[in-house]
């Protein structure tokens, strides 16, 4: 995928054509059908999210009725879940802590590795790339869980929230390295050489010359790793037993909607709190994210 081709579709102007006079509808019939079908899919995508958003601001009787639009709005569920559900702030903090650690370490690993694979060309680089590619196709996450349990037990990290960071790093490590690798391939080798001739060491070259040029790729692996760590279920479920040490998704998945503290609007409010940061971050960074995706991630 060349960047030029992507930029062209993003910016191409409508092609003006002279056609015989017809009614507006007939002239635009195919465009109208096209937009109708697209918007149908857009509604399908947004409807479940709209439903949970509406649920979080319904009064309790409205929540039982099940109509989409509530008769009476009630915004108190958001404060209620923080004040009355004792474990919620703890679980939320666990999620933030584990995710931040994972994203930070994976990004550093991926940048260093991607840079080295392209511009320092160590012996054995081909082997590393092959191993990374194979790991994308092998169901590592499922099969390795038995052994990871053993490793964590050996390290004394069973039932430890911090301990989750170690396996979480590898969830998207391979794809992150491969993305950074294709990003660094876009950086001309001459630029790196020039910096070296100017007397900059390998580390300084990476920091001053390389990093600014792979900014879009950084946004991509940031979001990819955030999504993976923020929503991880299997490892947390298996390695951590205490409710207070678990992350938010595991608690949410176990919560049964019904009465009391887990009444539907409360559950929905927690859901909105957990899901919003990712969507917001993506919406703000979408331009860089798309560019990075086109430059590196979708190269195949």
């Amino acid at each position, binding site marked *: 995928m060349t960047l030029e081709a992507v930029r062209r579709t993003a910016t191409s102007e409508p092609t003006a054509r002279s056609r015989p006079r017809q009614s507006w509808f007939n002239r635009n019939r195919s465009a109208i059908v096209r937009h109708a079908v697209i918007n149908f899919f857009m509604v399908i995508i947004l409807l479940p999210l709209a439903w949970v958003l509406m649920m979080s601001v319904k009064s309790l009787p409205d929540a039982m009725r099940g109509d989409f639009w509530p008769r009476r709005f009630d915004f108190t569920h958001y404060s209620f879940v923080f004040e009355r559900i004792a474990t919620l702030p703890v679980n939320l903090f666990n999620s933030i802590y584990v995710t931040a650690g994972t994203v930070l*370490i994976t990004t550093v690993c991926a940048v260093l590795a991607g840079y080295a694979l392209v511009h320092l060309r160590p012996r054995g680089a081909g082997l590393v790339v092959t191993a990374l590619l194979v790991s994308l196709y092998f169901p590592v996450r499922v099969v*390795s869980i*038995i052994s990871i*349990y053993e490793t964590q037990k050996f390290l004394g990290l069973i039932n430890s929230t911090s301990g989750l960071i170690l396996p979480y790093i590898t969830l998207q490590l391979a794809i992150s390295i491969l993305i950074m690798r294709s990003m660094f391939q876009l950086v001309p080798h001459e630029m790196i050489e020039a910096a070296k001739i100017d007397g900059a060491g390998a580390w300084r070259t990476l920091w001053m010359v390389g990093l600014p040029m792979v900014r879009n790729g950084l946004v991509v692996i940031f979001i990819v790793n955030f*999504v993976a760590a923020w929503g991880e*279920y299997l490892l947390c479920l298996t390695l951590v037993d205490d409710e207070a040490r678990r992350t938010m998704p595991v608690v949410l998945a176990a919560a049964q909607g019904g009465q009391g503290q887990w009444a539907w609007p409360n*559950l929905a409010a927690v859901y909105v709190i957990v899901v919003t940061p990712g969507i917001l971050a993506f919406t703000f960074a979408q331009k860089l994210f798309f560019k990075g995706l086109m430059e590196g991630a979708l190269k195949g």
Partner: protein
Amino acid sequence: MTLLRQDIGVWLFLLPAVVFFVGYQVWPIIRVLWMSFTNYQFLTNEPANWVWFDNYIQAFEDPLLWASLGRAALFTIMFLPGTIVLPLLLAILVDRVTNRRLATLYRVVLLIPAVIPSTLIFVLWKWMYNYQAGPINHFLVDTLGLFTLQNAPQWLGGTPLTLPSIAVMEVWWGLGYHTIFFLAGLAAIPRDLPEAARIDGASEWQVFWHVTRPRLAPIMMILVVLRFGTAMAVIDEYLIFGGFNRASPTYTWTIFMYDQAFKTGLWRQGYAAAIGMIGAVAMMFVMVLLIRIFRPKG
């Protein structure tokens, strides 16, 4: 000597990544492969004994293994066509949107489900499919009146509807992301190719089949193989929607493995490892076949 020192300096850059990759991806697979040939158990002090192929023989003689592999394959067949064809159709439509703002808006909406973490997708759809309070049954019972509260469909929880329900959820989840994938492929096709075909009198279908489709083949292959892999190795969804009932259609080889390793109380990790390896190798075998089938010709 200086060459060696240079190599060491370079490998310092690779070291952090390699340590984590080997420690938590390569080593576990080797370890599980070893376990599968032993009677290894987590909680005993006695060393594991090498039992050769006993675990594998026992697994192959267990009808549950075949059933569980079959269920995973059944889910894959339900899920794979929809998750390829629908995004392809949508991408062809979105690709023709010429209004710049609309095109960006569509792309942003398309990617929203892709930035919602997996478990949060499952939790959301667990509520959507909820028997009593879910909006889907609400729509079917109260709005359309097709069912009553007594005979409304039971979507999840190991009923025959569970696998199709999960497949619908997965197609929804991947719809936008796969569309973006195909959009990137369409953007790489020179504009004048389909135009020239149209001027020569080709129908839209002929343009798609003879001009667009062959150029999307590489992307299609990657998607088919990758999604085959995800579909065969689904585990979180089955844990959340199905549980450990052995008769449930969600009791696939992944759940069988997890059940043996962590749930049954027998702690037969060696046997679980063998089940995991059988499932993984069977998957890889089909993947290689798929790559050979879908590889672009020429």
